[in-house]
């Protein structure tokens, strides 16, 4: 065991998928021309005032309920004051002393089978800043305020994670949850889900936290893992060399897989937080909470447990099905059509379907084969119309757009011969053709059964129902 224990806490920024900004009516759609989605409020023209977006409040409540947290009856918007060109008001409206969500926990499954109960200290509403465009204009910085005022939920974990792997597993679990709840699209390329990591190390067994550094704005799981790993090693190396760690903000350099200092926090910025006098306390009533609770979907962890306990799926299948809600919903839709075939459905969702989606780089919502169509295909397998092996070919044809399962089975003549008369005739012909092998088999060479299966399949051009064929062959070979 290492002499050092890493201690990690994450601050995850999840952009809430509302139609408009946290305090103005401007759209938050990604990718618009610069400054076309900045209202007078977002530009901070004199006299403009913020009006809270009720949808954002509802999404924060949903998250709080999902992590079994406390929802504040009155949370307070505060101003975080600092000057920056892409911060139009000269302050960011955030929540400081009294966040809307506090003291939650999130169970996180680790690859080694352990489950971590991660304490989430708080989740608060805040607005995003705009963007500085440093490379668009010659010798000038452009400011795009489209993003200014976009609603964020900042989710702050306690410093309870002890490895890069744990941190990433936690981040993935939060990512699944916010998308599952429909409160964030989770798009990391567009910055809708990003995180800051606070990392320190301390001698194993010590209770006291070491000096931490903050790695800012990392927007992929892989980079978070690499950045934390690098930072842990860097800090251990420094401490073992007798150096001390400076409390500072560091940036992750993806090209070189290392972190470097951004600015020192020794003369830490004083943000002069104070309650925003333009905004009364954000009220949440018991009724508000009840309404959100009533709309809350079955949560990923509950659903995973149900798949194992009620449907008898293996843990691994259940976990994978619940990685995102769309996959789980696809599975549910198949299950609705064939309620007693959970394992078969799971196999196909996690097997053929996942492979096809992956190859086409499509999300499950855009699957070329619907859950109903796939269920219809599997029904043909269960009915013995086609074999499981044939079904994979039919699925390929369905994916290619050749029609539904029945159309393809008919068009390609894939229907299995389940008519015992036809099958018996084919077997008789094979046995007649290979008398020596029949004699050998009857003399005790059981392995020859596969030879007869193969010959009969050949004669039926693969359309024999394998179970039926086996049974009939064994019977006829008995003599």
């Amino acid at each position, binding site marked *: 065991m290492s002499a050092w224990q890493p201690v990690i806490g994450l601050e995850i920024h999840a952009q809430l998928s509302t139609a408009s900004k946290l305090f103005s009516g401007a759209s938050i759609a990604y990718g618009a021309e610069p400054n076309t989605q900045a209202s*007078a409020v977002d*530009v*901070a*023209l*004199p*006299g*403009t*005032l*913020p*009006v*809270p977006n009720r949808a954002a409040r509802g999404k924060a409540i949903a998250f709080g309920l999902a992590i079994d947290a406390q929802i504040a009856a009155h949370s307070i918007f505060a*101003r975080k*004051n600092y*000057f920056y*060109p892409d911060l*139009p*008001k*000269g*302050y960011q409206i955030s929540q400081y002393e009294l966040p809307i969500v506090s003291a939650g926990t999130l169970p996180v499954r680790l690859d080694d089978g352990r489950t971590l109960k991660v304490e989430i200290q708080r989740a608060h509403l805040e607005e995003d800043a705009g963007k500085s465009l440093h490379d668009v204009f010659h010798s000038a910085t452009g*400011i795009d305020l489209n993003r200014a005022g976009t609603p964020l939920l900042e989710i702050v974990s306690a410093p309870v994670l002890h490895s890069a792997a744990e941190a990433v597993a936690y981040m993935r679990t939060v990512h699944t949850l916010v998308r599952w709840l429909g409160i964030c699209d989770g798009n990391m390329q567009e910055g809708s889900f990003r995180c800051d990591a606070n990392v320190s190390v301390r001698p194993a067994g010590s209770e006291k936290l070491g000096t931490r550094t903050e790695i800012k704005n990392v927007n992929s799981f892989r980079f978070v893992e690499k950045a934390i790993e690098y930072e842990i090693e860097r800090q251990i190396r420094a401490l073992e060399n007798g150096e001390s760690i400076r409390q500072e903000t560091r940036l992750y350099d993806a090209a070189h897989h290392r972190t470097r200092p951004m600015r020192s926090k020794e003369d830490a910025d*004083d943000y*002069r*937080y*104070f309650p925003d*006098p*333009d*905004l*009364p306390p954000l009220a949440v009533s018991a009724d508000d909470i009840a309404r959100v609770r009533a709309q809350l979907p079955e949560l990923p962890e509950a659903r995973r447990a149900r798949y194992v306990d009620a449907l008898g799926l293996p843990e691994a299948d259940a976990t994978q099905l619940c990685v995102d809600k769309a996959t789980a919903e696809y599975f549910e839709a198949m299950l609705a059509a064939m309620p007693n075939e959970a394992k078969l459905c799971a196999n196909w969702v996690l097997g053929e379907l996942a492979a096809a989606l992956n190859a086409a780089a499509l999300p499950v919502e855009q699957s070329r084969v619907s859950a109903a169509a796939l269920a219809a295909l599997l029904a043909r397998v269960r009915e013995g119309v086609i074999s499981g092996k044939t079904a994979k070919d039919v699925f390929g044809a369905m994916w290619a757009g050749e029609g539904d399962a029945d159309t393809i089975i008919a068009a390609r003549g894939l229907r299995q011969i389940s008519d015992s008369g036809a099958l018996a005739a084919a077997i008789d012909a094979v046995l007649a053709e290979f008398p020596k092998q029949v004699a050998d088999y009857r003399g005790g060479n059981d392995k020859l059964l596969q030879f007869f299966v193969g010959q009969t399949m050949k004669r039926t051009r693969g359309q024999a129902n394998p179970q039926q064929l086996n049974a009939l062959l064994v019977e006829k070979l008995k003599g």
Partner: protein
Amino acid sequence: MATTSIAQLAQDLRARRVSAAELVQSALAAAQAGAALNAFISLDTERAMLRARSADAALAAGNAPALAGIPFVHKDIFCTNGLRTTCGSRMLEQFVPPYDATVVERLDAAGAVALGKANMDEFAMGSSNENSAFGPARNPWDPERVPGGSSGGSAAAVAAGIVPFATGTDTGGSIRQPAAFCGVTGMKPSYGRVSRYGMIAYASSLDCAGVLARSAQDCAHAFAAIAGHDPRDATSVDVGTSDYVAALSTTLKGIRIGVAREYFGAGVEDGVGAAVRAALREMEKLGATLVDVSLPHASLAIPAYYVIAPAEASSNLARYDGVRYGHRCADPKSLEDLYTRSRSEGFGAEVQRRILVGTYALSAGYYDAYYLRAQRARRVIADDFGAAFEHVDLIAGPTAPTVAFKLGEKSADPLAMYAADVNTVAVNLAGLPAISLPAGLSGRLPVGLQLIAPAFAEARLLAAGHQLQQSTDFHTYTPGAAA
């Protein structure tokens, strides 16, 4: 028009004895004639005439709204679409808003015709109008004296008879104190009663939009147009409004007026105290009962105010950074240089002083000692009022401890200037409505009587003022004809 009431003007307009165009034209002429008062920062002559003509059309068609054709002026703190809005600052000298404040929209909808924008202390910080980047407005009673502030231009324009009413804002007394200094009636409504949308912020938790006019009755007409909930201001309160004009007839019989001991303290000039007591005796004659009351924490108001207001201001004024609009220094060498020079050049001395004080009060290590303590003082002050209002219907005292002082008299001593707000700031800290009524003269200068009411009882204030003005003539004194 110089002393005609809004009600009378509205009748004259409807009877076609006078046209809106004539009224507005003569008001514009009076504004020109009174240019030495420096009451206006901008005149909007062309649009005023256009609006007057459309008011005339509505009057002729018989579907004119309540204030159709009545000229007035906006304090230059209210954003006006297409008309520059300076807030008395070099910083916003060229700023033309692309939207109207709610107060502007509502007075437009009521048919009133804005002549332009009134002078004011920069960002509403001041008690004398000397902090305007456009030069001080002057008091029509004595041009060597200040009109009060920050709504000095509004008060001067009404007192000079240029307009029957004006809009103003009041963060620590900025409507009531100039009303007192200029001998007009000015009402600061309850916090939340009038929308702050489009009103340039000084101290958001204290800023209130209100009106100044020659009488309580005129204030009621103007106030009725702007009062009421606005979803664009989250601090606007959805409490039902009254028919403020109809309520004016409520008599003073049985009304208990608490005379606040602390408001007649050491700084109050004898002439001011005497005039206010005389006015209160008139109210007694009309059926009111005078009761001695105490507001034991009144002395905390100035220190609490001068922490909270600058703290909020330091944040509210951070947006004036030279990046998107407003003054930008020439040829900035760096971002730091852009910020520093734009703000140093754009803001006047008092604004810079309050930004510094406020920044300090919010700083780590000082926040608890200043900002939090001031907030606690604020609660205690509000509780004082709450306790007093268990026994009385109104609380009275002098609006300001002195009459209008001379230009330059206090500008070298900020603390002496701040003391001019001693009787007004507590009202803002408690979010209450208050009115300043002319209460006669001290020497040759007007004195203001301040009445304070419980939250949202504006109708009670206006009625009390109207009843007093029905049986006295203090409000009819004009600068030229000083008794």
